[in-house]
């Protein structure tokens, strides 16, 4: 795809955002993340719901490093790519690698690396799933954070304990069990890392309905429940933890090699995020070498917080 066609399409989408804003009004919200300020311009009152998971990052109005314009229920012109050109992870192949364009699950993200503005179009904010409400702007924030030297990880975090593994491995349930015991919860699914610094990205926690013991703030048709929480904002990385479901009575920690931890964090992070090249594997390799790595043998759930407390 030629970059000019993408730039034209982005320009048309920007005009569509302005029309949506004139029609429904524009709400502004400012967030502090990865040492920078992001300003969100949200067209229409209902679009504000998409930023709920970023509420803990909200700050006073300030000069912004990135403006993200968000709108929904507004038709766009036909894009300069065909459906068949979309790659897995929603990545749109564009000749100029500076363009980060993705379309996945009715969310379109457009950003040119280094540009001070980005555009996010949603088909209908009211129809977002638990995952989308709990982890909004995932593709955009992944690309933007990487450009600032951070890496977005598919990982939970409790204090300095980074809990890694694919979906269903026990990240969320371990982190939420720790949250319920008052440990410093940063994330249940995604967080940012740079060197030994961890930063909370979303103030959400997600659980399948069969794991729920409390009433969730939002449910989706898939049976997932979403909670809004007050996470800790930052932590110093102290350990990488790989949960493993066992039928044992007691939970336990045992040391593992960093390569084993990399196998838990790298594939599940890179295979689900667009624009994930070999360079990120090196960053993750440095991360798992930095601190001790453990297998968390998941037994009784009530044991897990005490074990994580030792590492956090």
């Amino acid at each position, binding site marked *: 795809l030629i970059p000019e066609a993408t730039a034209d399409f982005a320009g048309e989408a920007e005009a569509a955002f302005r029309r949506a804003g004139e029609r429904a009004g524009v709400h502004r919200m400012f967030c502090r993340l990865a040492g920078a300020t992001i300003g969100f311009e949200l067209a229409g009152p209902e679009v504000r719901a998409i930023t709920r998971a970023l509420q803990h990052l909200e700050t006073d109005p300030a000069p912004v490093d990135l403006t993200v314009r968000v709108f929904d*229920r507004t*038709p*766009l012109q*036909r*894009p300069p790519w065909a*459906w*068949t050109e*979309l790659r*897995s*992870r*929603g990545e749109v192949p564009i000749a100029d690698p500076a363009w980060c364009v993705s*379309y*996945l*699950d*009715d969310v379109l993200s457009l950003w040119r690396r280094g540009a001070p503005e980005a555009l996010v179009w949603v*088909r*209908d904010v009211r129809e977002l799933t638990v995952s989308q409400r709990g982890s909004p702007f995932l593709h955009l924030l992944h690309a933007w954070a990487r450009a600032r030297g951070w890496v977005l990880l598919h990982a939970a975090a409790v204090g300095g304990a980074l809990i890694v593994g*694919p979906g269903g491995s026990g990240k969320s349930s371990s982190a939420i069990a720790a949250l319920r015991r008052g440990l410093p919860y940063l994330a249940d699914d995604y967080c940012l890392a740079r060197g030994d610094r961890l930063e909370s990205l979303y103030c959400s926690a997600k659980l399948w309905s069969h794991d729920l013991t409390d009433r969730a703030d939002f449910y989706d048709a898939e049976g997932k429940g979403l909670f809004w929480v007050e996470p800790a904002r930052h932590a110093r990385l102290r350990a990488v933890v790989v949960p493993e479901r066992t039928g044992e009575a007691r939970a336990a920690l045992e040391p593992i*090699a*960093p*390569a*084993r931890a*990399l*196998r838990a964090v*790298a*594939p*599940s992070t*890179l*295979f*689900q995020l667009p624009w*994930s*090249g*070999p360079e*990120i*594997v*090196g960053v*993750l*390799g440095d991360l798992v*070498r930095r601190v001790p790595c453990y297998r968390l043998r998941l037994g009784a759930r009530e044991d897990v917080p005490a074990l994580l407390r030792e590492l956090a």
Partner: protein
Amino acid sequence: MAYRLNTPRFAAESFDHEVVVLDLEGGLYYSLEGAAAWLYRELAAGTALDGLIAACPPAYARQAAAVAQQLVSESILTATNDEGRAPVEPAPEATAPVRMTRYDDLQLLLQLDPVHDVDATGWPNPGRP
């Protein structure tokens, strides 16, 4: 014959006793342990395959050749025009494991086709409320 890592499709990270390889397009990942890790490191750095197999203890030379063949057949390594250098690291001892494990449990993450998750009408339908 000499080889190099097939980038950017594949990425590899080398640890003391293990090399982790990711297929960023195919959604597979691999673990190479013991002598297989040594074999990968040497091949990816440009060591000639014949010289490398000759340097292996007889106890695992055949297994090492099979690992090398799999690295090539799965496109992790791609041939170069170079003749290749001599091995740099000494071969691990004869009792070292030669283990290459292929994981496909996360392949579904890449095979999720976004096209199938949108309307059959294709691009957002202006008539939709």
